[in-house]
């Protein structure tokens, strides 16, 4: 992520806050969520490759995309699913990827830990 943020500069989106709810406390829920997200990440990367005009950035993005695909196949295998079920992967668009992520409720607002109220400490 650090490398991506440096590459994107001011175009990088703000760092999100996550709440994965109960998916991290149940083995099966964790597996199902991991499979869904690895598949989603692979499709989302592919959906953006056409927007990269720089061959150098395309090379860097492809090197990440292929590893995402390995992760997707690996977690599918661990979950007892066919690692590569289809001969061709379909990309998904950015709005569709964002809609899917938003529907999980995993991205939440950051905790409000600052205030301009006067302290009520003992002083």
């Amino acid at each position, binding site marked *: 992520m*650090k*490398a991506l943020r*440096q*590459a994107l500069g001011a175009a990088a989106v703000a760092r999100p*806050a*996550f*709440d994965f*709810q*109960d998916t991290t*406390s*149940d*083995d099966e829920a964790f597996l199902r969520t991991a499979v869904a997200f690895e598949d989603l990440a692979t499709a989302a990367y592919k959906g953006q490759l056409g927007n990269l005009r*720089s*061959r*150098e*950035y*395309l*090379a*860097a993005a492809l*090197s*990440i995309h292929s590893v995402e695909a390995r992760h997707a196949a*690996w977690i599918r*295998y*661990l979950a007892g699913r066919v690692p590569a079920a289809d001969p061709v992967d379909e990309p998904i668009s950015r709005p569709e990827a964002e809609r899917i992520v938003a529907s999980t409720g995993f991205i*939440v607002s*950051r*905790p*409000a*830990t*600052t*205030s*301009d*109220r*006067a*302290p*009520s*400490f*003992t*002083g």
Partner: protein
Amino acid sequence: MLRRAAVLVVACWCALAIGCLVVVVAAVASISSSPAPAALLPPTADIAAPPAPAFDVPAPRRLDDAVTTSRWASLARDAEVYVSPSRESGRVALLSRLTPEGTDNIVVPFRRAVDDEGRPWVEAQIPGLPSRQTGWIESDALGTGGESRARLVVDRERLTLSYVRAGRELLRARIGVGRRDAPTPAGRFYVRNKLTRYASLRYGPLAYGLSARSRLTDWPGGGFIGIHGTDRPGLLPGAVSHGCIRMANADIVRLGRLLRVGTPVLIV
């Protein structure tokens, strides 16, 4: 689960190794009975070299560095705190979702458990008196949070405050601590909020709230202590406060550039 995953990974690697071996053996057998490969392959001189990636992805960093990393979580709702991971065990505290200053209340989880009915729990460091600093909370009461790789050390005898990150002391300042009749409590605590732009000369330009609570529990807000500036810098250093840690305004402003909510605080 981890064991099963490990077995699967090992099995996967074995299958891969066996597969590679079969392919290599078959290839060697094929090559030994075929014309030289160079005669079959097209010339490569006309194939452009692939572009170099625009950036290198560095080696990943481990996330489970518990020695130097402290993680905190906000409360998603008011939360009851129990002696053990069960609703049947004694309740030791009721944590409000918000602090007296209106910020999200936070805890520092450090252990998980599941009760007999399958409900997940976490044991967490909580705000309160030194006599009750930990307890069990149902994990669905926790929201998102963050992490800290720094720590703050307050020495009540030497009257110093040190901010340390990655083994380096980045700030040291002289401080005021609690008087003998209202001592600053010793123990392991954490920073739970940051207050700025309030209208109070007494607390200086900046204040941090801690999870530590003084013996002055009937103080408005429950008697929690903080780290803040002062309008009486001439009293520093010394045992001059009602339990809070006072700093010169210039020092608290310097600290404000470094210290984040959730950072562990050791008071000795």
